[in-house]
């Protein structure tokens, strides 16, 4: 549904997006990760046609966003980072406006508004003017606007920003549900959201894609991925070091696999060793890897790593 080819955006001398290419198919939820100022919002603004790209192409549903902007925009529902809505309008008036702009009229419009009001929990504030709403409600009003025409492509710039934990949970569920039949891109810097909602994550830094894959694949890039933590009476670092690099924790040991290929077999090897030695196991678990560790390692400037 979304195809991005070698997208570049300059602001004056500064290059905000530097040759990004990827595609998103129907049924995919792509999480867009990256530090502040890495080019996430700029990329999304180019996909939605707000910024014209300096070079490169974006096509949505087969329509080039620069050449056929209206056809492309009709397919897109967009929640901007600012989540701005006209403050002098009521929630209902604003949704009616958004629906009318999407060509919805009469009964279809009433139905569409009822659907998004229910999905975004706006029933209690329908007749309130937007400038009197709390941040969470404002945010959801703008989200409702993005969903009103049941778009094929959903672009959400930090959809859970400013929401309370319950609302965050609801929005993630909503994204996952919509993602089953539509193409969704959302940006976030909350890493758990990648696990909670994404089928694929793209990490961008300084305008370039630095890593991508399923949350599982990304996590496997972590140094601790596949490591086994063992707490057992009689266990010694010396014996365990035969299996891999051992780190002594408080009364426990963490064994790191020598390389990624060995990771899958490590837990079995530890269990083997434990039974041979006759240690009394109090606890043992396998690390899945930490996304934030991967994120930090990829996106921190090189100087920090040295």
């Amino acid at each position, binding site marked *: 549904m979304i195809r991005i080819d070698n997208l570049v*955006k*300059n*602001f*004056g001398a500064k290059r*905000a997006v530097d040759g990004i290419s990827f595609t998103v198919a129907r049924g995919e939820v792509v999480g867009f990760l990256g530090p502040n100022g890495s080019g996430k919002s700029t990329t999304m*603004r180019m996909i*939605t*046609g*707000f*910024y*014209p790209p*300096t070079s490169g192409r974006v096509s949505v549903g087969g329509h080039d966003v620069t050449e056929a*902007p*209206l056809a492309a*925009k*009709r397919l*897109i529902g*967009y929640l*901007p980072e*600012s989540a*701005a*809505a*006209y*403050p*002098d*309008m009521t929630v209902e*008036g604003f949704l009616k*406006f*958004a629906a*009318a*702009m*999407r*060509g919805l009229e009469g009964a279809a419009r009433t139905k569409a508004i009822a659907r998004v009001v229910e999905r975004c929990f706006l029933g209690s504030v329908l007749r309130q003017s937007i400038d009197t709403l709390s941040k969470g409600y404002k945010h959801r009003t*703008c989200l409702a*606007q993005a969903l009103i025409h049941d778009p094929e492509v959903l672009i959400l710039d930090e959809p859970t920003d400013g929401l309370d934990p319950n609302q965050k949970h609801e929005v993630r569920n909503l994204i996952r549900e919509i993602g089953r039949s539509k193409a969704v891109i959302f940006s976030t810097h909350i890493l758990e959201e990648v696990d909670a909602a994404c089928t694929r994550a793209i990490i961008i830094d300084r305008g370039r894609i630095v890593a991508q894959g399923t949350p599982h694949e990304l996590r496997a890039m972590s140094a601790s991925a596949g490591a086994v933590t063992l707490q057992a009476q009689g266990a010694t670092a010396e014996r365990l070091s035969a299996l891999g690099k051992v780190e002594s924790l408080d009364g426990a040991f963490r064994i790191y696999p020598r390389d990624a290929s060995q990771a899958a077999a490590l837990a079995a090897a530890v269990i083997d060793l434990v039974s041979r030695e006759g240690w009394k196991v109090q606890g043992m678990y396998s690390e899945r890897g930490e996304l934030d560790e991967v994120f930090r390692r990829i996106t921190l400037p090189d100087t920090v790593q040295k």
Partner: protein
Amino acid sequence: MKPLWIIAKRELAGYFSSPVAYVFLVIFLLVAGFLTFTAGAFFERGEAGLGAFFGWHPWLYLVLVPAVGMRLWSEERRSGTIELLLTLPVTTWQAILGKFLASWLFLALALALTFPVALTVNVLGEPDNGAIVAGYVGSLMLAGAYLAITCMTSAMTRNQVVAFILAVVLCLFLILAGFNPVTDLLVRWASPAVVDAVAAFSVVTHFDGFQKGVLDSRDLLFFLSVIGFALFATGVIIRGHRAG
């Protein structure tokens, strides 16, 4: 074309959702009345015409039209709703025209509410009603020209006050270029051709014809070109912000 009207409708409703619109209408009518009857000496003239009324419009609009139009784009930019608006399936031109037409319609309403002045001259004497209609058309064109310039300055900044001041300054130039005290000054050191060329850019020069009851296509064309040019510039400015 439909999104244009939906945008215009939203914008027009926006004026009336707060007391600002009503306050504006009252101030407009009060000031117009004061200028006509007191400063313009409407009764003392002993003429059955609206010269005392229309003559003030270039000055009256100088402050009031930028006040109506200053928020059109600057507010969208300040609050970030411009991103929402321009990612909806509309073209930039539809958005610009929709907003412009909504404000112009609002000004037309304000102007229409001055109808008692026209009634008054008809009760007191036998005016040339053709000239009055022409005056109203000219006044509406004048308001449109100022408004289009305000649209342009509004697109330049996030700050409504800056947009207002810029618009007042630009509109003032358009008045002064043909304002008699200024042209008299110019005559002293410039050739008549230069003076005429400068005066040709003035709204005063082109508004005069309407007041006399002459609907000259050249005057009409002048106002329409100012509107067209300023709205085109608005589009260029808005595109410029996004192009980076």
